[in-house]
Every structure is written in structure tokens, then in C-alpha cells.
């Protein structure tokens, strides 16, 4: 006997990991020979080896007849091998199963050990035919003298009833008797089966309630109790009286059982079974919630997880009870485990009410705030962070926190938006607050949430009427302007147009409407040029409908009472009418025509003709010719004076008499300045002063005096209405340098626009740079003479934008450390392999 045993095969597999398939091919060849042997031991050994290979994914269906041969061996150790192979490799389509009916019948009337092997095998391989033929034997087996056989027969009967429902009535009747079996294991198996049956059709099993209730109050088998509790959970909707009857024993179980699994199942059943309704349910509900809250604080992550799941279900009926544990639940959003965080977020979202929304959103928002920040000025993000709850000790190591993962941040941001906007802003009581949340979110999110925030901004203003909206219109002005000016940053600009043109905008302030209309034209211009570049005749309808949309909406504003809106609308209408006419005149050129192709090659004029409607390029140059860059504070003053230009020389000598008044305020003031100087210096003409010098010399008193003179003069002028309040006049001459300027931190650089505009095709892959370059000094003219006061650069230290990204890397290293700290894996001693 030199054949390989199973152990030899396994050792060989482990030694031949490099060319496993070759080794297995050889082994299977040997098995094919061995399996045909007359020696039953050898045959069984081959089947066992095949079973092992089957487990690894190698097919053994070809050997099913040999499996049946081994099953039929009278020797128990061989029979076991045969049944094991059958259980693992047979399925409903295995044809040799037809041959097993008599074998199974015989084994089921044999020694007890044969019976249990046969019953176990039958449970796995049963087909409708086998179920029909063997059900009488199974039914009689339910009263076998051995409890072990009765248990197996009960479970096998379930599988038979599933395959052959005709036996169901008889089987269920027998099962009811088995609930009173003297052996607790048999009762537990019966409950298992009844639970499965009742899950499919609970109303048929209501008559079992008294027996089950008795078991619930007397048994100590936790597995069975869990099943019974679950069974009652599915029965109670069909029998409302059960709820009241179940409350006492379930309360008893919840308060006394030491088994967490049973405790949880009771709580869970109470929730989903509607046992917490009414006055009697209130104390039970309180108990359930307190138990679940204790689970959340447990060290066992599994308990945390399922407790959060269960609390989500209890929130709709008892929000006030869950709200008591708001802080505990919010702390779970900080958990290390991402799946627990997600469940906690689910729960937090479900808990939102008009009272709790603000505090919840504020805390969720704080999770988006970077943990470490070395910025010198307190940013909005940092001041937010100061208001967060003290974080739990589990987040002591912020660098391994999943808060840094972009996917998680995106989900968090989306959650904030859904929490606030659900049921039409049902829970938002203060829209000014919500707008500030949106702005904060845009600031700290650092993920691709921009479009949603924008939609929210537009939606809020479009929907919400009332005093609060006044404060947000500036935001919309900015939003619309940014959309228009930086439309090349948008991947699908045309989708924005309907938002900018929605009917609600007519309720906005005129200046904002004007910006909207202008932004529309900018975006369309950009988009049209983009479409033209990759022109396809199929685009025509879309472009046409977009033009129609713009025209339709713009025409409504042509008659607007505000002159700026009127002019913008009129301009837009004219330009778009032109485009519309061009589009209507456009006829698609045939491309697939070989003659056209050939002829065009001889006709240079024809080939030069663009394939797209030319008017698509009409608007882009109007808006996109120059990049808009921030201009430095001192740029104007630093423009070098060209050779031969004397700025100080009068172009037209000033008249002796005061010049007639000019409407524009600035002009008037300049003239006045010059005049005032003249008087102060006491010279009539020829004195020339640079403007800077003038500013420096001019004192506050001077200015006050001049303004007083001016007011005096204007008093009698019928073209001026004089405001008597002195405060307004004071504001008019406030020193510009003293206006406080707040440095906006972390603003995206405006200078970055260039690249993406030049390479529009790369926009899709555009990822925001981890550290922004901020053009703080602004654009300076070429060859600028830098004045001394701007020579000291402002804080040029890059903002700490890149810090969080860097700290996200150690996460993996730490994980590795955790891995290595687990107990040493078993070392395979080389001697045995």
C-alpha cells in the first residue's frame, strides 16, 4: 500500500505551492485510478482526497457515483466518508441521488449511528422526490427512543417539508407534540424549525402561542429563548393581545438575563414587535433605551454596532428617550471603526428635530475640521473647533482618525446637507444659521461637495420667503458671480443654467438678478465653446433648447424696472437671438459621404469651413479674454512713469474761477482737492503737486473745512438735496487705510485658473492641490517700482492646508503595528511539511 493518504496530499500541496496545478493534476490522476479500485478502503481514501480538493474549488461531480458506492459501505468509518463527500458535493441536479432512496431508507432503519449520519446527509441533499419517498420514515423517526435521533429527524423533517409541502400539515401537527418532548435539546430543535416555518407565514402558527409562552417563562436555554422571542416578534402583529401578555416576561428577561445576546434580542423584538406602544410600553421603552445606551459605551465594538442599529428603530416612536443620550451617541461618531461611525451617523440623522438640529449639525461639522492647524490667524474652522465637545479618549490619536479619508468626509458633508434639508427644511428654524453652516461647510469640507452646497444655497433662497433671506442675497451674488467667472472649473456647466434661470430669482434684489443674467451668458459662452470643440451634430438640439431657455427667461427681464437688469437682459436677448438665428440656419454636414470627403480635399475653402455653428464662439471672447487676477494694493502707484511724460504738468491750465460742478462724486472731489490746495498754499497757479504728497499734507481739518464749504455752496443749488445728518458726511471722507481688512484664510487661489482654462480637457481629472498658493500680493505692473511700504511682504507662510494630508499617512503604519501585536501565528515546523 503505497498510495497517498489525505495527509500526504495535504503535505504535498503545502510543499508545492509554486506549481500547485501541476501537483493537483498528478494527484487527481492517481485518484482516478484509486477510485475504481475494488478495495473499499482505497476507494474511500480517494473520495476523501477528492472532497478535500473540492473544498479548494476543484470539481468532483464526475465521481458522484463512486461517492454513492462509498456511502453504501457497511463499515461506519467508510460510510461517514461517503456521506461527507455527498453533503459537500451533491446538489439538486446530481442524477445519482435517484439511486440513494433505498440506501437512505436502509440506513434509517439501521444502527443509531448510521441513522444520524443518514439524517444529516438527507438534510443536505434532499430533493422533492427523496422528500416524498422518505417522509413516512421521517415521521415515525420523530418518536425514536434516542433524543439524538429525534433532534436530527426534526431538522430533517423541516428540509423535507420545504421540498415537499404536501407533508406540511402532518409534519406541523407532529412538531407541536415535540414541543412537550422531555429532552430539552429536542424542544430546542423543534423551536428552531417552527421559527423558520413561522417566518414564512406567521398567522398559521398563532395557536402555538400558549406552549411557546410557557417555554419562554420556564426555559433556560438561551439559544432557544432567542428563537422564541424572535418568533413572538413575528407573531405579535397578528395578535395584538400578545403584546400585553408578553410585556411582563420580556421585561423580566431584560432585567435578569446575563446573556447579552438574549438581552439584545429581547430589546430588539420589543422595538420591532411594537411592544413599546401605549402607556404600559413606556417604562419598557425607557428600559430598552437605557440598556442600548449602555451597549454603546461598552468596549465591545459589536455591541456598539448593533445598539446603534436598534436605536435607529426606536427613534421614530420615542425620540425623547433617545435624545437623553445624545452626547453618548455623538461621541460614537468619533469611533475608530468606520462602520460604527456610519451607524452612528444614521442614528444621529434619525434623531434630528427642530430643537436638536443646530447642536447636532454643529458637532458633526466639527468632525470635518482638521485636527491640527498651525495657522497664525484664527480661521472660521478653528473657531468652530473651539466649540466642539471634548472628544472621547478613543480619539486621542487624531492621526489615525478616519476623518481624513475623503470618502468619509464626503459622506459627512452630505449627511449635514440631508439632515438640514430633509422634509423641505422641516427642522430648520433659523435660515441665517443654515446659510452660515453652508458657508462653513464649503470652507472646511475639502471634498467635492461644492455642487450640492450651491444647489442648497440656490434652493434655500428660491424657497424661503421672509426677512432672513435679506442677509443671504450677497452670498448669492457672490455665488452667481463665481459660477460665471470661473465656469471653466465646472465639469458640466450647462447643468447650472436652469438654476441661474429659475423663476424664483425674480424675487431677488435687482443687482443680484443682473449678476445672474450676466453669469448665465458667461457660462453659456464657455459651454458653447466647449461644445464647439468636440462638435457632434447630436449636440444641436441641446444647444438649441438651452438658447431657447436663456432667451425665454431673459426676455422677461427686459421690462424690469431696474435699469441695470434691463440692460443686461436686453444685451443677452440680442446676443442670443443672433445665436438662435445662426443655429436655425445651421445644416449638419454629411461626414460619411466619401465624395464629399474627396471633393473637400480639392476645395480648401470648403474644408476650412468649421463643422459647427460659428456663433457658438460668439460669447466666449466677450468674457474669457483676460484672466481676472487680484491687483496689488500699491500696483497703481507703482506703474513706472514713461519717459517724457510729466504727470505734474497741467494738461489744461485751471481756470481762475471755480469749475462748474460735475455730477460724478469722485471728479468733483478731485477738483475740490486741487482747489483747496491752491488756497492753502496761497498761490494762484504754477504750483504742481503729486497726489501722494497732497494726501500726506492734507489734514483732517483741511478736509472738514472743504466739505463744509461744499455743503454751504450746495445748499442753494436746486440740483442737490442736502442730507443734514453729519454722520453721513463723516463716512464719506473716512480714511481708506483705516478700513479693517480681514484676511480670509484658505481661500482657493484665483491665480490657479490659468492652467485649467488652457487645458479644458484635463478638467475632469482636476484634483484640488493639497496646498493652495495664495496670491496675497496681487498682480504688479511690469517693471514696477515697489514702494517701501509694500516691500515688507505679508505673512507668506503657506497655510497649513497640507498638514492634514500628511498626517493621514501614518494611519497605515499604525495599523501594521496593531497587526503585529496580535498573538504570534502558529509557526509551521519545517519538519512536518
Amino acid at each position, binding site marked *: 500500500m503505497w498510495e497517498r493518504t*489525505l495527509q500526504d496530499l495535504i503535505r504535498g500541496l503545502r510543499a508545492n505551492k509554486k506549481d500547485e496545478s501541476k501537483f493537483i493534476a498528478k494527484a487527481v490522476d492517481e485518484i482516478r485510478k484509486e477510485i475504481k479500485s475494488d478495495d473499499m478502503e482505497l476507494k474511500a481514501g480517494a473520495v476523501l482526497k477528492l472532497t478535500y480538493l473540492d473544498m479548494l474549488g476543484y470539481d468532483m461531480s464526475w465521481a458522484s457515483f463512486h461517492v454513492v458506492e462509498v456511502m453504501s459501505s457497511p463499515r461506519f*468509518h467508510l460510510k461517514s466518508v461517503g456521506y461527507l463527500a455527498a453533503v459537500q458535493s451533491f446538489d439538486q441536479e446530481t442524477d445519482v441521488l435517484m439511486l440513494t432512496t433505498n440506501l437512505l431508507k436502509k440506513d434509517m432503519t439501521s444502527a443509531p449511528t448510521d441513522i444520524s449520519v443518514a439524517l444529516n446527509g438527507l438534510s443536505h441533499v434532499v430533493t422533492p422526490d427523496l422528500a416524498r419517498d422518505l417522509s413516512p420514515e421521517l415521521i415515525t423517526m420523530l418518536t425514536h427512543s434516542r433524543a439524538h435521533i429525534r433532534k*436530527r429527524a426534526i431538522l430533517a423533517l423541516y428540509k423535507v417539508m420545504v421540498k415537499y409541502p404536501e407533508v406540511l400539515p402532518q409534519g406541523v401537527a407532529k412538531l407541536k407534540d415535540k414541543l412537550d418532548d422531555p429532552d430539552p435539546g429536542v424542544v430546542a430543535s423543534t423551536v428552531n424549525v417552527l421559527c423558520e416555518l413561522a417566518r414564512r407565514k406567521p398567522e398559521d402558527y398563532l395557536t402555538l402561542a400558549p406552549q411557546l409562552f410557557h417555554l419562554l417563562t420556564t426555559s433556560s436555554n438561551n439559544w432557544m429563548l432567542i428563537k422564541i422571542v424572535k418568533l413572538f416578534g413575528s407573531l405579535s402583529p397578528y395578535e395584538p393581545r400578545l403584546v400585553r401578555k408578553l410585556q411582563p416576561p420580556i421585561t423580566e428577561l431584560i432585567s435578569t438575563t446575563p446573556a*447579552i445576546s438574549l438581552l439584545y434580542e429581547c430589546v430588539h423584538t420589543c422595538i420591532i414587535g411594537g411592544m413599546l406602544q401605549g402607556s404600559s410600553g413606556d417604562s419598557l421603552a425607557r428600559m430598552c433605551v437605557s440598556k442600548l445606551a449602555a451597549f454603546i459605551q461598552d468596549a465591545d465594538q459589536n455591541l456598539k454596532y*448593533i445598539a446603534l442599529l436598534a436605536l435607529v428603530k426606536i427613534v421614530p416612536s420615542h425620540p425623547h428617550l433617545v435624545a437623553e443620550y445624545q452626547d453618548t451617541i455623538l461621541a460614537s461618531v468619533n469611533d475608530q471603526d468606520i462602520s460604527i461611525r456610519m451607524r452612528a451617523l444614521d442614528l444621529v440623522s434619525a434623531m434630528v428635530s427642530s430643537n436638536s438640529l443646530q447642536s447636532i449639525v454643529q458637532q458633526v461639522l466639527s468632525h470635518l475640521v482638521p485636527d491640527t492647524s498651525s495657522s497664525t490667524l484664527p480661521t472660521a474652522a478653528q473657531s468652530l473647533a473651539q466649540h466642539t465637545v471634548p472628544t472621547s479618549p478613543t480619539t486621542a490619536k487624531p492621526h489615525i482618525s478616519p476623518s481624513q479619508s475623503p470618502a468619509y468626509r464626503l459622506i459627512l458633508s452630505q449627511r449635514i446637507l440631508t439632515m438640514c434639508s430633509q422634509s423641505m427644511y422641516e427642522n430648520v428654524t433659523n435660515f441665517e444659521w443654515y446659510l452660515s453652516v453652508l458657508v462653513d461647510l464649503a470652507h472646511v469640507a475639502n471634498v467635492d461637495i461644492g455642487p450640492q452646497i450651491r444647489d442648497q444655497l440656490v434652493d434655500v433662497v428660491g424657497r424661503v420667503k421672509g426677512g432672513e433671506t435679506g442677509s443671504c442675497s450677497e452670498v448669492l451674488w457672490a455665488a452667481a458671480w463665481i459660477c460665471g467667472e470661473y465656469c471653466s472649473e465646472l465639469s458640466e456647466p450647462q447643468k447650472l443654467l436652469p438654476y441661474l434661470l429659475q423663476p424664483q430669482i425674480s424675487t431677488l434684489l435687482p443687482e443680484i438678478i443682473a449678476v445672474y443674467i450676466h453669469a448665465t451668458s458667461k457660462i453659456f459662452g464657455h459651454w458653447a465653446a466647449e461644445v464647439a470643440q468636440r462638435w457632434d451634430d447630436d449636440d444641436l438640439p441641446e444647444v438649441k433648447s438651452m438658447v431657447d431657455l436663456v432667451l425665454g427667461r431673459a426676455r422677461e427681464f427686459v421690462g424690469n424696472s431696474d435699469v441695470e437688469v434691463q440692460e443686461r437682459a436686453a444685451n443677452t436677448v440680442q446676443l442670443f437671438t443672433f445665436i438662435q438665428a445662426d443655429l436655425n440656419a445651421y445644416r449638419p454636414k454629411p461626414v460619411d459621404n466619401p465624395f464629399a470627403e474627396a471633393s473637400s480635399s480639392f476645395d480648401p475653402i470648403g474644408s476650412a469651413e468649421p463643422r459647427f455653428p460659428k456663433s457658438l464662439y460668439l460669447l466666449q471672447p466677450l468674457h474669457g479674454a483676460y484672466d481676472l487676477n487680484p491687483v496689488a494694493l500699491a500696483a497703481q502707484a507703482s506703474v513706472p512713469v514713461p519717459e517724457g511724460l510729466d504727470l505734474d504738468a497741467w494738461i489744461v491750465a485751471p481756470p481762475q474761477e471755480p469749475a462748474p460742478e460735475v455730477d460724478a462724486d469722485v471728479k468733483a472731489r478731485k477738483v475740490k482737492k486741487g482747489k483747496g490746495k491752491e488756497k492753502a498754499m496761497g498761490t494762484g497757479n504754477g504750483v504742481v503737486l503729486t497726489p501722494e504728497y497732497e494726501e500726506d499734507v492734507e489734514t483732517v481739518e483741511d478736509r472738514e473745512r472743504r466739505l463744509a464749504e461744499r455743503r454751504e455752496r450746495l445748499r442753494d443749488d436746486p440740483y442737490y438735496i442736502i442730507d443734514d445728518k453729519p454722520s453721513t458726511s463723516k463716512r464719506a471722507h473716512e480714511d481708506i487705510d483705516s478700513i479693517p481688512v480681514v484676511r480670509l484664510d484658505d481661500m482657493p487661489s484665483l491665480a490657479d485658473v490659468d492652467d485649467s482654462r488652457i487645458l479644458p480637457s484635463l478638467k475632469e481629472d482636476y484634483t484640488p492641490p493639497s496646498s493652495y498658493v495664495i496670491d496675497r500680493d496681487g498682480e504688479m505692473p511690469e517693471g514696477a517700482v515697489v514702494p517701501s511700504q509694500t516691500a515688507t511682504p505679508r505673512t507668506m507662510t503657506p497655510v497649513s492646508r497640507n498638514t492634514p494630508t500628511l498626517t493621514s499617512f501614518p494611519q497605515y503604519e499604525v495599523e501594521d503595528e496593531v497587526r503585529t501585536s496580535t498573538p504570534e*501565528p502558529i509557526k509551521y515546523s519545517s519538519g512536518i511539511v
Partner: protein
Amino acid sequence: MFPARHFMQLPWTPPELEAFLGPKGEEDERWRVVYRSYATLYFVFVVDGAESELGILDLIQVFVESLDRAFENVCELDLVFQFDEVHHILAEIIQGGLVLETNVEEIDNSVQVSAKLRKESFASANPLSLGIGVGGAGSRGGNLKSPLGWLTGKITGGRAM
């Protein structure tokens, strides 16, 4: 009810702690993966809505304790080299996807009875054998030592199952 088939190749990268994988499909009919790790060993059960997740964790504990009794300080090599024995033990806990027995004593008794019978049957068929057969529990030869009692150390008594 769950398929009594344990996966030898985990279809995903196991996370650090035992947990339940997310739901799939309808609320009640979804399949859930409940798993528990004992150092380098992962026990994975796939269950449907009829089962309690925590109950299954306890059941995994029962399974491991039964293995530990049958193999006396079970280790990976026991599970690899005597997969048939592992199946026989599992068959005393689960039959056809339904739980048969959860009492470790009962399970251990049944396992011992059938193992003894297989051994006797083998011995009577091979009177000259030295105790090495097709799938007998006696095949754990002298060179297959499991010097580490680590798994028993891991088992700190299940949750009153």
C-alpha cells in the same frame, strides 16, 4: 438558517475586529456575514434574517470550544489536516443549516461516540494497522505537535451560552 459551509478563502480582507458586514437586499431577507477571529483563525458564518447576530457569535464560540475539546488545544494544523473531523464536529452542531445543539457537553459526547465508532470500525477492517486510516482522529501523528495552548487561552468562557 445558514449554509453549513465555512469558507476557507475569505472573500474580503478581514478587518481588525470581529463585526458584521453590512446589509444586503431587503431588510429581513438580507444575508449577513458574522465572523469572529481567534488570533490567526477566522470563523465566518453567513446567516439570514432569522438569526440573531450576537447569538451567532455565541454559536461560533460553541463551535470553537467543541473543536478545542475534540482536538485538545486545537490549532490551525488540526483544522487543515483533519478537515473531515472538523466537518463531523460541525455536523453535531448544525444540520442542514439549522442549529442542532448548542450545549458543549452534549456536542462533545456525540462527537466522541461517533469518533470512537469510526475508530473501531477502522480497526476491525484493518487489523494490522497502526492507527492511521482514511480519516480517523488517530492520525494526528507524533510529528504533528501543537505545542501552543494559545487557543484555549483565547477562550474566556462564552456569554452564558
